[in-house]
């Protein structure tokens, strides 16, 4: 995530010197094929092209220059030569311990501030395939914004997680939500355990369980809190959590709140995971050497920054071999992967019962809000009585709930149409097409062939701002991501493909990306284009991948 810069005491002062040391940690170019004893039912194609050395050096240099200017401008601000726009502490509290450390803000003040206009742009329409943005202007170099009152109409939206295009203000979902608003109101004003358990909540939970093909499910009002408030119910002292290094902040927070020991394995690296599992079981808990009470492996379906898909068949094999439990966060993959839109389990054709805890959110593919946990009946019964959320947090809002029920029924085909099914297929098709075209243009694209999250490498921090501005100038909204959400030199743009994007929309977007890519010299890829990938856009592309 681009905009949280917690601790960075001495920002890239070591800049260029570091580049030489860190060269060894660059992603090694890798294209994995399925070669794991038939665990995979489909080719697993994922690539992370190596950062070109020259680009890496220039990226460090650009951080170096930004840092030097940062210090210079801090110096000017200190001596009041440059006007200082930073919010000030109240006079009476000047002698309190500073609320946050100055160095925490060096990056914000001097680097993030320069490109801050690329984020937090307010919408004034549905976050669909096209959106309306409020035009904003700044007279003090991004310290404050004001809205001109003009609206930028029909900006192509490549940023929202609207994978299946259910973010809509018309149609069956909106209608059912409207009905619920008038019938129930928008709030509940109580918790599930006290007096906020509506019959529709229980219906929705039955539907979620049916959708996922598991025994039982429970839903929660916020996706982030689903992780952070339920992992502590599942794991505690004396338990071990094995967590992927790129897991989302909510999973990390949940693991920390649980009080368990946390060990981190390399991203999607099964050797690393197996090594940790073996060591953990053989050596037991640190110091006491007692055996662990239980081991919980925590992974995500699609990693939202890398666009990679978890190696689920291997994870399940490992989990079975070592009797660990598996917590799968499908925030981005539910609805967006698999021939039936049932997420990464469906994508690999696996049995959902092999995943102990299925977690996901309704924010993305379902165009609603909240999250769920699903699994065996005992698990859900335990959560119903022990989840923090069930006891202390307000239940889910009725209109949001109706949006979930209607969109989920649509994906399942229970509404009597094939609309849901078509959306799932359209998304897969769009994804393959978009990724293929970008790669052909010579951009470095990360991640799995099937992932609708498409990170395109920009590397240099200034290019995040430049790319976002140039794209917006051409009426396309994109999202840029930089440190600390990514490694320092791997700034990127992230496109989220939606089933609502038509081929025309995608083609417009692609030609603009091509143009801006040339303008900003973003075509870093040195890989020879494979002839097999240069096929025209047709249905075969989809069928080849999805069988």
């Amino acid at each position, binding site marked *: 995530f681009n905009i949280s810069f917690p601790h960075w005491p001495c920002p890239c002062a070591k800049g260029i010197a570091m580049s030489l040391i860190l060269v060894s940690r660059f992603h090694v170019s890798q294209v994995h094929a399925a070669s794991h004893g038939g665990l995979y039912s489909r080719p697993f194609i994922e690539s992370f092209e190596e950062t070109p050395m020259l680009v890496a050096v220039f990226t460090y240099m650009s951080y170096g220059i930004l840092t030097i200017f940062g210090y210079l401008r801090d110096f000017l601000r200190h001596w009041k030569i440059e006007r200082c726009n930073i*919010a000030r*502490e109240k006079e*009476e509290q000047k002698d309190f311990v500073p*609320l946050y450390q100055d160095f925490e803000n060096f990056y*914000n003040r001097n680097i993030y501030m320069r490109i801050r206009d690329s984020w*937090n*742009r*307010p*919408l*004034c329409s*549905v*976050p*669909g395939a096209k959106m309306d943005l409020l035009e904003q202007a700044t007279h003090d170099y991004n310290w404050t914004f004001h809205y001109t009152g003009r609206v930028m109409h029909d900006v192509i939206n490549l940023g*929202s*997680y609207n994978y299946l295009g259910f*973010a809509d*203000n018309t149609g069956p979902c*909106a209608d059912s*939500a409207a009905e619920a*608003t008038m*019938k129930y*109101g*928008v*709030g509940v*004003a*109580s918790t599930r*355990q006290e*007096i*906020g358990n*509506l*019959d529709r909540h229980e219906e929705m939970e039955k539907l979620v369980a049916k959708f996922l093909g598991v025994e039982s499910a429970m839903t929660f*009002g916020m996706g*982030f*809190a689903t992780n*952070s*408030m339920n992992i502590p119910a*599942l794991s505690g002292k004396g338990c071990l959590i094995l967590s992927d290094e790129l897991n*989302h902040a909510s999973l990390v927070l949940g693991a*920390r709140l649980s009080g368990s020991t946390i060990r981190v394995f390399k991203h999607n690296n099964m050797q690393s995971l197996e090594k940790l599992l073996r060591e953990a079981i*053989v050596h037991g808990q640190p110091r006491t050497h007692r*055996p662990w009470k239980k081991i919980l492996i925590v992974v995500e379906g699609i990693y939202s920054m890398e666009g990679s898909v978890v190696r689920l068949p291997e994870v399940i094999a490992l989990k079975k071999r*070592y009797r660990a*439990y598996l917590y799968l966060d499908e925030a981005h993959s539910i609805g967006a992967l698999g021939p039936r839109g049932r997420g990464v389990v469906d994508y690999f054709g696996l049995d959902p019962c092999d995943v*102990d*805890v299925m977690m996901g959110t309704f*924010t*993305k593919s379902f*165009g609603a809000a909240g999250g769920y946990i699903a699994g065996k009946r005992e*698990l859900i019964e*335990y959560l*119903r*009585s022990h989840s*923090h*959320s069930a006891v*202390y*947090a307000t239940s889910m*809002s009725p*209109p*949001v709930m109706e949006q979930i029920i209607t969109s989920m029924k649509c994906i399942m085909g229970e509404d009597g149409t094939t609309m849901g099914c078509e959306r799932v297929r359209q998304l897969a098709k769009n994804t393959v097409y978009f990724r293929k075209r970008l790669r052909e243009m010579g951009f470095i694209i990360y991640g799995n062939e099937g992932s609708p999250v498409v990170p395109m490498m920009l590397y240099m921090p200034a290019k995040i701002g430049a790319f976002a501005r140039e794209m917006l100038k051409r009426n396309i909204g994109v*999202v840029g991501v930089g440190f600390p959400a990514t490694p320092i030199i791997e700034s990127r743009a992230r496109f989220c493909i939606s089933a609502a994007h038509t081929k025309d929309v995608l083609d417009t977007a692609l030609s603009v990306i091509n143009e801006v890519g040339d303008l900003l010299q973003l075509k870093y890829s040195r890989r020879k284009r494979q002839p097999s990938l240069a096929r025209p856009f047709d249905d075969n592309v989809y069928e080849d991948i999805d069988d």
Partner: protein
Amino acid sequence: MFMLLTHSQPCFFSFYTNNINMASGQQWVLVEMVQAFYEAPAYHLILEGILILWIIRLLFSKTYKLHETYRLTEKEKEDLIEEWQPEPLVPPVSKDHPSLSYDVVTGPPSHNIIINGKECINFASFNFLGLLDNERVKQKALASLKKYGVGTCGPRGFYGTFDVHLELESRLANFMKTEEAIIYSYGFATIASAIPAYSKRGDIIFVDEAACFSIQKGLQASRSFIKYFKHNDMEDLERLLKEQELEDHKNPRKARVTRKFIVVEGLYINTADICPLPELLKLKYKYKVRIFLEESMSFGVLGEHGRGVTEHFGVNIDDIDLISANMENAVASIGGFCCGRSFVIDHQRLSGQGYCFSASLPPMLAAAAIEALNIMEEDPDIFTVLREKCKHVYTALQGTPGLKLVGVQFAPALHLQLERSSGSRDSDMQLLRTIVEYVSPTRGVALTLARYLEKEERFLPSPSIRVVVTIEQTDQDIQKAVSCIQEAASAVLK
């Protein structure tokens, strides 16, 4: 170099050359040494030889390593892995666990609520101002739905900010008369994210023992030192602050970077009483500690305009560093907000985890909150009405046989506890549950037990029945509820 060697060497051999005069040691030369060697008896030489060999062996033998002797073979590892049996993922829950079967509400959870098929008057939802089924709020939410759809499909940073969010933030800031406000998409996550945004490892937080669960989670996430003071006991707090001051004097360098916070609630959800804010402020400036105030129960309730405890006490709101509240009680929507000076609040836009990493609040829920604020601003009399009702319920419930009413008379969410505990928490809970079941839903009054996670709470509140006052309750409703409760109490607690 060589001389040095020859000087030390003789010392080593000297025990059998006692007859040689030590005073002439300086004049020793190699020849004399060799001579001594020849003079030495054979057994000495053999002994020396063995000693030298022993030393060489010691020098060249491998060091003794502890872990090597314990290193496991692959086979042993496999056996250990084979042997290990984990605990089940979750312990089994007995079928009759009291919190397993929820009461089912059909239809809107408003003033008249249908619980398990029976219509009741609601004395349990935190819908203090009755805005949950307010027609105006519904219409505004509907209009917003028609414009934006339901979900936002992204966090605030990535096209998840809507003009409605900006409007709600500025409206909240205006309403509270603060510089800035920030909204979260979930009430529980608000204070739980706000605390760790400022307080880090090594910082110190002074917290009231009765603090609610979301504060406790925020404290835990911050990984700071937590010091609990007795509920609403300012002397105890001052004692802790003084202790800390002494500590700071001992280590002024550390004190210069250790942030200190007091975290309190306006109206405590667990005890239904109010924090002594003026005294807290005195302590704040005396000991240079910042104050975070959780107002979920008092926002939209206390004060002439519903601004909460600050207005209730007539305290300058700028003296409070951060106020947080949810919009799920009085406002009857979803989500929460923090407000205060920009210097404080703006920091959360980059470090409030629940703000940065979560999808933003659905615009229709924000629109509903804006309309609720409109209603609160247009008609501040509702707060007076609410206070009157609270007072009414408070006085009417005094003298319920076997039960004591806990809380202050202007609190809208009161607790009824057992006057005398029956001995164990479980049997107390069972008694109270029987009272609730006597009334709700069979006799048409919806009540609920206050629910807690008994193993998770830092200081577990006593078992109680929640009694929630809303402005929609008429005198007859209150009369009915009170007589039901009294009847139930005398029937159960004979």
